[in-house]
């Protein structure tokens, strides 16, 4: 039982075990690294080739983000701005689970695969037979893990490669299933829920490895990305976000940050004493991969405890974009967006890889819409900062990002560090939810424009002192959230020019937009809303072309695929996640002064729980 480790006595034991375990894994890691490089030349290329080829086939949806570049774009164009008005639901499927449904289905050939929130059931549905269930996988997990999941028991989907389906279970078990039968091929324990380590993000397969992150930023975990061999689940590499160089897999001379080598102990030197051991930097977003550069890209979450006064220093490498070698995990470059976080602005949001012109020059870019309200355009070959601009005009905690140092210019008035413990800092925008959370944006290579689901929420934040106990929340701040002053809408769906750093158009939404977007070659962009609408809008203007109210609020991501000559749009509804927790009862301040408007803002007046997949077509 999880609770057994919480007593002061056994906590010490637990710590002892942890330390021992880090050492073992380090040894294991370096040995495996050696092995890994020998193996790379052999069979592993096959899976890579298969996926690299498959991701180019618009008829299927073979990885969570559609392609390795995290673009959530489809070249399908049967559904267009002209005919989308005629779209209608054609079939639906109840997942039988009530909790928040993030992520979305994969489509491989004639089979659709999807996973549910805890208990993390996986379904294979036959597209040739109206979604008949080919197999169902039901893991057996101790429900006690639910107690240490931060914000609902979400799961952001499965991945496919080499005839296998990979599932990240809540209890930090990574499972490989036979894609044909649903039978377990192997499973491996990637973390310890007794310490608050859980898994929510979708695994990503790169070459012969499957990469998984660890969640638990609110429980003081030591965040990391881990790679396992897809063949047998053997550990290939493990890269922590915070800690000594050999744990974070940094080369002090070769790992770069804004054009300079990071030097030795780049993480350790930014923490007091051993605080890095509960330093957070959890990894729970979407991972991108550039096959030409052989780099994987992802971000790390908040530093341990939300009370900044308790952890002096920049707290590297929390809140950071990592570019790591896919074979070894060694970091090529890093960029920390929010040094010494004071607001819970996790850096985990997706990195979108796009070849675009930036200020007139063609660039292999990485575009990232951070929780902190700035959209960053970086050169993904070396991590140089090209553009950083606010993508919600409400953002006020920093005036701008210094192009040389990459540091935000923090406004003292909104600094919870300057305010100090037990001081309530008011009117910070964005709220801890960020101007955008994990719900992924999309990019159309046709228009060169990004389409972004956003939040429009501010907060008061009061830090206070906490102590670390394994498996207990390590938060240390109270906050209340509310709409920006004088405004009614809690979200916007925007089009973004990453070259200029400018909003092109913006559609206001009653609630935060908490669904992943989809851009298509049919000049239509799709997204879902918390009150349950699937919406289609014109790519050029943002004009609404179609909407349909699904059975529950949408926090899932929109996908598309072809079957039997028809293009389909698929989305999971099922309200929940952090949005469901924060907004079900409306926000603080909604009821003060706003009266009827406040009540109107209660999400629970619009939608109730329940996981359903809805599939649409125009034919």
């Amino acid at each position, binding site marked *: 039982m999880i*609770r057994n480790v*919480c*007593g*002061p*006595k056994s906590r010490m034991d637990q710590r002892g075990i942890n330390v021992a375990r880090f050492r073992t894994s380090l040894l294991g890691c370096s040995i495996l690294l050696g092995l890994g490089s020998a193996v790379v030349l052999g069979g592993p290329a096959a899976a890579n080739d298969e996926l690299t080829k498959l991701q180019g086939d618009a008829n299927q949806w073979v990885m969570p983000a559609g392609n390795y570049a995290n673009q959530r774009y489809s070249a399908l164009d049967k559904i267009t701005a002209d005919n989308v008005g005629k779209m209608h639901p054609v079939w639906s499927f109840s997942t*039988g*689970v*009530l*909790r*928040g449904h993030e992520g979305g289905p994969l489509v491989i050939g004639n089979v659709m695969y999807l996973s549910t*929130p*805890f*208990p993390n059931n996986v379904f294979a549905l036959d597209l040739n037979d109206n979604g008949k269930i080919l197999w169902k996988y039901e893991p057996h997990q101790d*429900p*006690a893990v*639910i*107690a240490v999941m*931060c*914000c*609902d*028991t979400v799961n952001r989907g499965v991945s496919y490669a080499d005839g296998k389906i990979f599932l990240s279970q809540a209890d930090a078990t990574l499972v490989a299933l036979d894609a044909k039968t649903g039978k377990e091929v192997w499973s491996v324990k990637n973390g310890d829920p007794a310490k608050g380590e859980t898994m929510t993000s979708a695994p990503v397969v790169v070459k012969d490895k499957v990469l998984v992150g660890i969640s638990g930023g*609110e429980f003081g975990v030591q965040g990391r990305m881990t790679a396992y061999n897809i063949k047998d689940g053997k550990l290939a590499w493990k890269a922590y976000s915070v800690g000594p160089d050999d744990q974070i897999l940094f080369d002090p001379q070769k790992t770069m940050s804004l054009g300079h080598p990071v030097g030795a102990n780049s993480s350790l030197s930014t923490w007091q004493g051993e605080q890095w051991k509960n330093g957070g930097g959890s990894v729970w977003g979407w991972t991108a991969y550039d096959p030409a550069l052989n780099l994987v890209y992802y971000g790390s979450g908040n530093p341990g405890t939300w009370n900044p006064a308790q952890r002096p220093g920049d707290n590297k490498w929390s809140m950071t974009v990592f570019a790591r070698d896919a074979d070894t995990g060694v970091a090529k470059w890093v960029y920390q967006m929010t040094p010494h976080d004071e607001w819970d602005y996790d850096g985990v949001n997706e990195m979108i890889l796009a070849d675009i012109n930036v200020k007139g020059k063609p660039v292999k870019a990485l575009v990232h819409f951070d929780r902190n309200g700035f959209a960053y355009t970086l050169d993904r070959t070396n991590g140089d900062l090209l553009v950083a601009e606010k993508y919600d005009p409400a953002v006020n905690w920093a005036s701008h990002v210094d192009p040389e140092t990459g540091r935000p210019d923090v406004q003292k008035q909104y600094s919870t560090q300057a305010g100090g413990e037990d001081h*309530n800092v008011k009117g910070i925008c964005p709220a801890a939810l960020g101007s955008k959370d994990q719900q992924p944006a999309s990019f159309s290579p046709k228009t060169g424009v990004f389409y972004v689901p956003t939040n429009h929420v501010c907060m*008061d934040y*009061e830090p*206070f002192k*906490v102590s670390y*106990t394994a498996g*207990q*929340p390590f*938060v*240390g*701040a*109270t*906050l*209340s*959230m509310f709409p920006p002053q004088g405004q009614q809408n809690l979200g916007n769906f925007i089009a973004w020019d990453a070259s200029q750093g400018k909003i092109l158009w913006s559609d206001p939404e009653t609630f935060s937009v908490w669904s992943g977007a989809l851009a298509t070659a049919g000049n239509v962009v799709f997204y879902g809303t918390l009150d349950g609408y699937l919406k289609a809008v014109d790519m050029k203007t943002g004009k609404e072309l179609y909407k349909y109210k699904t059975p529950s*609020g949408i926090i899932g991501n929109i996908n598309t695929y072809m079957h039997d000559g028809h293009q389909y749009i698929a989305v999971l509804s099922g*309200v*929940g996640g952090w949005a*469901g*927790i*924060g907004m*079900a*009862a*409306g*926000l*603080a*301040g*909604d*009821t*003060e002064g706003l009266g009827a408007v406040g009540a109107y803002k209660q*999400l*629970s007046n619009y939608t109730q*729980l329940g996981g359903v997949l809805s599939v649409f077509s125009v034919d």
Partner: protein
Amino acid sequence: MIRIAPVIPAMVLAGSLLTMPDCAQAQNDPVYSVQNGIVDQHTFNGYRRYGESCHRCHGPDGSGSSYAPSLVDSLKNLNYEQFAQVVINGRQNVTTSSNNVMPSFGLTPDVALYLDDIYGYLKARSDGKLERGRPKRADD
């Protein structure tokens, strides 16, 4: 203290509970004080502890979420005894159709030691004496 002692598993917290004056005082259901919108120290502490340990499931200000029930509503029916019982021991309602887990906080000092304060804060909310958002302290 006397009331909750039987349900605290093991002796882990017993020693520290005995030394806590505020726990020892609680003869009747814990009380709160709200005067001109300003709360006493215990109620404020309850708000803070709620934020640390309960908010992520029960939503802001005890008002409920898509995940766990509104405690503002619950405390209209639950007395302190029943409240303490659930919080100390937890409650699982895990079936084919539901996955509700209310953790047990019996061994969590941040909660077990301040149960009265958390109850008082939520009771003030439930009685309609306290608005949404951060309560005001005397020294604000």
